[in-house]
């Protein structure tokens, strides 16, 4: 009898202790409620105590949580369509408010956050240009989105750690247009390169041809000049020589010229034997009478 009483008391102690002790994990935070009313939030990990039975605990995550939203097709201020895919990392900062807003369900929390993000994304993209989004100020834009979402997410008890644009793409039909443009750009480039090749080739060949012509012409000029100089020299030499006796030169040169000019074979002579050459043809003493002529 005594023994079973002891056993009952032991069991009761175990139950009471079990109900007043709870563990807070390193990754968790716990809300302690009393009849549905929040008493406190425990964020220190370890063993904790509460009033048994009348107090309950609700466990929420304390880690950085992830939110992936489906991609959004948005229009930028310069009327370009973009498919933007963002993700966020957030932390439950105010467990109580988060629980009130979502009932502790991460799914619902993510849904609400997703709505905020979607709206903020469209707003910010709508105010900026394509070039800003893609190239120049992605970080600034994400900071702006983060700011906007953060102010709204405060109502959820959530602090956005980071929002990043994961992908910025063009919609499918625009991508096709970009591909076509890239293609034509490359075709243009290829054509240009080939044309430049022809240009360079032609230029090199033309330059070569020019060099050839000039070289030849230069050679010709030199040749003529040289020949001219030769001729001058020759003239001078001969003139110097001939000038020593112009009368003899005329005779001497005439003799040479006759010999050269009256070559055998193409000349027939019809001569009268009364020239000086034939002086002795008819008489050994010569025509004394003819002499004075």
């Amino acid at each position, binding site marked *: 009898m005594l023994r079973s009483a002891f056993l009952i008391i032991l069991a009761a102690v175990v139950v009471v202790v079990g109900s007043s002790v709870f*563990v807070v*994990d*390193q*990754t968790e935070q716990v809300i302690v409620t009393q009849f549905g009313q929040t008493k406190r939030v425990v964020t220190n990990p*370890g063993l904790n105590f509460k009033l048994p039975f009348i107090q309950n605990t609700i466990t929420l995550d304390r*880690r*950085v949580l*992830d939110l*992936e939203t489906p991609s959004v097709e948005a229009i930028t201020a310069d009327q370009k369509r973009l498919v933007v895919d963002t993700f966020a990392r957030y932390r439950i900062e105010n467990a109580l408010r988060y629980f009130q807003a979502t009932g502790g369900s991460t799914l619902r929390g993510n849904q609400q956050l997703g709505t905020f993000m979607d709206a903020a994304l469209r707003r910010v993209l709508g105010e900026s240009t394509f*070039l800003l989004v893609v*190239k120049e100020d*992605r970080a600034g834009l994400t900071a702006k989105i983060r700011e906007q979402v953060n102010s709204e997410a405060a109502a959820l008890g959530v602090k956005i*750690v*980071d929002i*990043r644009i*994961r*992908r*910025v*793409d063009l919609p499918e039909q625009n991508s096709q247009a970009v*591909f076509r443009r*890239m*293609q034509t750009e*490359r075709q243009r*480039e*290829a054509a240009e390169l*080939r044309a430049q*090749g022809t240009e360079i*080739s032609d*230029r*090199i060949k033309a330059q*070569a*041809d020019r*060099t050839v*012509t000039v*070289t030849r012409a230069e*050679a*010709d000029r030199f040749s003529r*000049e*040289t020949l001219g100089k*030769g001729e001058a*020299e*020759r003239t001078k*030499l*001969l003139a110097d020589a001939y000038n020593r006796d112009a009368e003899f030169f005329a*005779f*001497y040169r005439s003799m*040479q010229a*006759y010999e050269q000019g*009256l*070559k*055998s*074979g*193409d*000349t*027939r002579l*019809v*001569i*009268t*034997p009364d020239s000086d*050459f034939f002086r002795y043809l008819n008489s050994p003493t010569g025509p004394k009478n003819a002499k004075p002529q």
Partner: protein
Amino acid sequence: MSNGPWQPRGQGPRNPNPWGGGPSGSGGGGGREPPDLEDILRRSQDKLRRVMPGGGGDGGGIAKLGVVGVAFLGLLAAIGWMLTGFYTVRPNEVGIERVFGKFVSITAPGLNWNWPYPVGRVNKPTIGVQTIEIGLRSGDGRRSTRDVREESLMLTGDENIVDVDFSVLWLVDARKPQDYVFNLRSPEATIKAVAESAMREVIGRREIQPILTGARLEIERAVQELMQKTLNEYGAGVIVQQVQMQKVDPPAEVIDAFRDVQAARADQERAQNEAQTYANRVIPEARGEASKITQRAEAERERMIADAKGEAARFISVLDEYKKAPEVTRQRLYLETIERIYGGMEKIILDQGKQGAGVVPFLPLNDMLKNRTNEQGKR
């Protein structure tokens, strides 16, 4: 079932994992839950029955044991439970211990002990280098590598699209592995998301031509830095060791056009080389020809001068002699010359005498002229 009394303890250190199913690995949590706890309890009860006199009855056994027996039983159960706290950390892992949910210590590879479930928990993340591939999924024997276009196609700053495959080598920061385990709910998904976002941001800032050609190293470094910065902001406890770009190509739709540009560049070079070859051939030829012409001219000039000198010298010599005996020399020259001329020539000598005329009409001038034209025609 006839094991010795302290069998589990003896077996413990030798077998690295005597209680089967070790704690979960690198994932986010997962406590140790020895599946054969009941079995151990049952075994110790069996032994107890054998040790205790009069034991062995079913139901209400505890009531018969007495306080000492209960205490002994409890102690034994406690020892058995404590023994399940041993765990091993492999060389490429690090152990992270929690007691009542609170992080207490990091343990080195080897055999370690922590409070068993449900009081303690151990996580053992791998600290080796791990790889995340983006834009492709490597084959592993059976499956071939395939391209994931929605991950790999990205916009460049000049509104072109490139196809980039890359992988990220990362590892858990050995100085604070607890951050990796406790701070993020899905660390690997986060690393991947950050990697994609960073690469697109970096690519988006650049133009397509440098991306395709030279800027690879610079991009890799920029992505790595950006990733590291972002992950540090999350307190991810992760070190991004390296970002490797595997493939950087124009998209498949336009790759032919890009290759054609390469071909065109080669064509350009070829045309240039051909032209240069032509130039290299013609110009020296022309130079050779030119020097031929100039040499010929020089030669001609020298020949003319020499000729003239010779001629002049000859004339002067003759003149000198002539001056010594002008009459005779003149006569001689005249006669010799005419002799040579008349010597080799057809000639008709007409002695007209004083009366002249007479014979002229009989000269066959026509024949002579005809003969002459024939000769000209033959020439």
